[in-house]
């Protein structure tokens, strides 16, 4: 069990690569950087394959339990002493390990993250060959792999959150790789801040879980949730799962926190492929899938997840219909496909959602890498209005991208068809009329997906050349380091779908079977909630029947894909310079709204960030800043000034008091009071002789009278 016991090495290998880059990267040559960074990821992939194989044998012998390897106690009490109170009053022991868990869900993620990561690392050696900051790029990529692998392999929510934050950080670093460009650094800030809003929700959800369950370890949480201890519809669980979903919205770019993903295209194309297509954005899906035991206990949250997923899907697809930058189209496509994944999770079709993540990783990474190859061939041009007729000139890129487009549009037998169709079928068969509406939304989105993807193909590879002559002369196929991964991913896009060949077409749906230990009880609960308990008891699930409705819906979705393809071909296959967009011709108002992304970014600027003022008022964060500044300069400083004014007033009063009362009344007053006495005293020294004589005489007369009358 060497691979399993040392499973902690898998995240640590890329971390080691990142550390080497951090300390020594500046002095290494590009070859050494390649050897170290790409080498550790290749090693991680091989290790992951070994671990997956060993897990399969181990699980078969151990009742398909998840394999857990705890490395050390990280947080909280080691002795088992209770240190906080749970909601029901019982004492809780807060204890978080640095532990790794391997079960079918994390195995799938592990394999495609390391696999696609490895391919993208190899691709990047070709793509970034002429760029500066080579070692920095690979250091960040390795750091990202470390964080993502920690996220996937964690055995508890807290360690997952460490990886969660880590991928957010690496996303910021990599989007802002060309940080000297203001648009790039703005986009990096936008990504990180929007992510952070989601992270707040994630943290609150985690706190609820810790408070309610007393533990954050997946095994314990799932055990308690499945034990029936909590009732379905429990309000705290609903709150906790909704908050976790907020975190997923931030990380996986759902409404309303999707705004960072299109701007994230400022980063180099391999970054867009790895982080914003195949791996980081699937972290939200992973987290919700991991918490399926909690979500099935909160049907309200599931409904919210499904609705948000469906709305995001159609919203993003509609914007993608008219974008001109090749990477923007793919970015909105990613948001839209992520919406499908959440729709699947929301209706209880967990394995279908995971299957779509799996297939999407391959064809979306392929699309992005192919777009990178196109941009490389076009000497940096990204606007599709200036491309055209590249099919003969860059054949490998063209063929692989075409395969990926077929996959994403949902044309059988390519990968996307099986996963998308499964999601739509599960949505249709969910109880409740609302789900039919969601199916309708998903159906229209599929049509739009086909349309904008084939639009991309026709504008880029077919139609008339619309680029300048200089660029046209430089068009060349990419080196093997870039085309190699494209071919591998194309093969996966072709064949990966077969893993989930549905029962209705005679297959064994191995993918869903593989995920049974993780999702079976959750999906069963959903069925029970839908009133299909008898079916469950009979050991059957919907897809085991070959239902005619399912075949009909399959044909309808293929039809939608075909319709989208046909519409795109009609409008774009012969597009010349200055071609007219069909939507613009039909409804210019709609076109400009879609081109401006429904003005959502502007709306956020008005309301949340406060970068634009409404009239004279500024709302949002900057408005708060302005209000605080006003408060400081008017109220606080006003108080200070008032204190000063009061002091000066006191001074004035004091001086008045001193001058008039003290000096006037006390000092001078005493003098004036003695004045009358002086008047009397003066009489003694008048100087007039006759006055003296008179006084003497009067005295004498007095004496005489005194003696006479006594």
């Amino acid at each position: 069990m060497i691979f399993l016991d040392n499973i902690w090495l898998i995240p640590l290998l890329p971390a080691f690569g990142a550390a080497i880059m951090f300390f020594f990267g500046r002095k290494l040559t590009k070859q050494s950087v390649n050897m170290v960074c790409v080498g550790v990821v290749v090693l991680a992939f091989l290790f992951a394959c070994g671990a997956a194989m060993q897990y399969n044998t181990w699980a078969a012998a151990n009742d398909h339990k998840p394999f857990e390897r705890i490395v050390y106690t990280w947080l909280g009490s080691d002795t088992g002493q209770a240190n906080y109170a749970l909601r029901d009053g019982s004492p809780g022991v807060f204890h978080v390990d640095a532990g790794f868990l391997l079960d079918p869900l994390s195995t799938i993620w592990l394999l495609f993250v390391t696999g696609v990561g490895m391919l993208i690392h190899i691709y990047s050696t070709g793509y970034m060959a002429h760029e500066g900051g080579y070692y920095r790029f690979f250091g960040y990529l390795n750091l990202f792999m470390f964080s993502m692998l920690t996220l996937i392999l964690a055995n508890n929510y807290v360690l997952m959150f460490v990886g969660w934050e880590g991928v957010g950080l690496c996303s910021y670093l990599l989007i802002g790789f060309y940080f000297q460009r203001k648009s790039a650094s703005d986009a990096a800030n936008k990504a990180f801040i929007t992510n952070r809003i989601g992270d707040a929700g994630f943290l609150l959800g985690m706190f609820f879980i810790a408070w309610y369950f007393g533990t954050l370890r997946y095994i314990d949480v799932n055990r308690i949730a499945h034990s029936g201890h909590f009732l379905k519809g429990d309000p705290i669980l609903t709150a906790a799962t909704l908050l976790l979903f907020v975190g997923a919205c931030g990380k996986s770019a759902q409404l309303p926190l999707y705004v960072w993903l299109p701007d994230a295209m400022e980063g180099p194309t391999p970054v867009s492929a790895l982080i914003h297509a195949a791996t980081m954005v699937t972290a939200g899906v992973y987290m919700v899938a991991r918490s399926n035991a909690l979500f099935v206990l909160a049907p309200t949250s599931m409904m919210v997840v499904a609705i948000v997923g469906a709305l995001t899907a159609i919203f993003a697809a509609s914007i993608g219909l008219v974008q001109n930058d090749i990477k923007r189209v793919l970015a909105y496509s990613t948001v839209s496909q992520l919406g499908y994944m959440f729709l699947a999770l929301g209706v209880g079709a967990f394995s279908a959602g995971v299957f779509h993540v799996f297939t999407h990783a391959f064809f979306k990474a392929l699309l992005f890498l192919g777009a990178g190859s196109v941009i490389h061939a076009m000497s940096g041009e990204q606007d599709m209005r200036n491309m055209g007729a590249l099919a003969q000139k860059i054949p490998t890129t063209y063929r692989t991208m075409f395969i990926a487009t077929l996959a994403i549009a949902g044309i059988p037998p390519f990968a996307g068809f099986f996963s998308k169709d499964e999601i739509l079928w599960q949505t249709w068969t969910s109880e409740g009329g609302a789900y039919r509406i969601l199916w309708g939304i998903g159906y229209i989105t599929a049509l739009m997906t086909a349309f904008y993807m084939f639009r991309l193909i026709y504008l880029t590879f077919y139609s008339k050349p619309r680029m300048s002559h200089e660029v046209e002369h430089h068009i060349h196929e990419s080196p093997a380091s870039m085309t190699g991964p494209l071919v591998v991913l194309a093969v996966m896009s072709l064949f990966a779908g077969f893993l989930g060949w549905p029962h209705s077409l005679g297959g064994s749906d191995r993918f869903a079977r593989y995920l049974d230990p993780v999702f079976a009880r959750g999906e069963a609960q959903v069925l029970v909630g839908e009133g299909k308990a008898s079916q469950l008891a009979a050991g059957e699930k919907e897809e085991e029947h070959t239902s005619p409705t399912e075949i009909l819906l399959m044909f309808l979705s293929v039809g939608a894909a075909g319709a989208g393809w046909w519409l795109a071909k009609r409008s774009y296959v012969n597009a010349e310079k200055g071609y007219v967009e069909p939507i613009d011709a039909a409804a210019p108002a709609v076109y400009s709204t879609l081109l401006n992304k429904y003005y959502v970014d502007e709306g956020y600027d008005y309301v949340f960030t406060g970068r634009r003022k409404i009239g004279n008022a500024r709302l949002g964060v900057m408005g708060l800043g302005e209000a605080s500044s006003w408060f400081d300069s008017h109220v606080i400083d006003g108080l200070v000034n008032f204190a000063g004014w009061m002091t000066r007033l006191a001074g004035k009063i004091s001086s008045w008091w001193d001058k008039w009362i003290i000096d006037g009344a006390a000092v001078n007053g005493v003098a004036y009071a003695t004045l009358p006495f002086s008047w009397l005293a003066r009489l003694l020294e008048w100087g007039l002789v006759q006055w003296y004589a008179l006084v003497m005489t009067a005295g004498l007369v007095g004496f005489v009278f005194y003696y006479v009358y006594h």
Partner: protein
Amino acid sequence: MHAMLDISTLHYLVLGAALFLLGVIGVLTRRNVVIVLMSIELILNAVNLNLVAFSRYWQSVHGGLSALQGQVFAIFIITDAAAEAAIGLGILIAFFRNKETVNVDEVDLLKW
């Protein structure tokens, strides 16, 4: 003439008192220094009159025995008055030399 006044001692005393009072008033109220000195003489002479009157009265009371003390004392006083008048005039001259005036009011150098 039946209501002919007998001039008794009382009349002399009253006269003496009246002259004394006039003298005092003169000393106290007159502005001219010379008049003040004259008033002082008047006082002294009034006193003399008083003394002589009492001397005659004692004689009349004690039947012919003469008491000349009063009259002798009156001569002393006359002498005294004369000396005093000389001194007084000397002061007046000094007075005038210092302050070109004979107004008592105007010599108030010893005042506050």
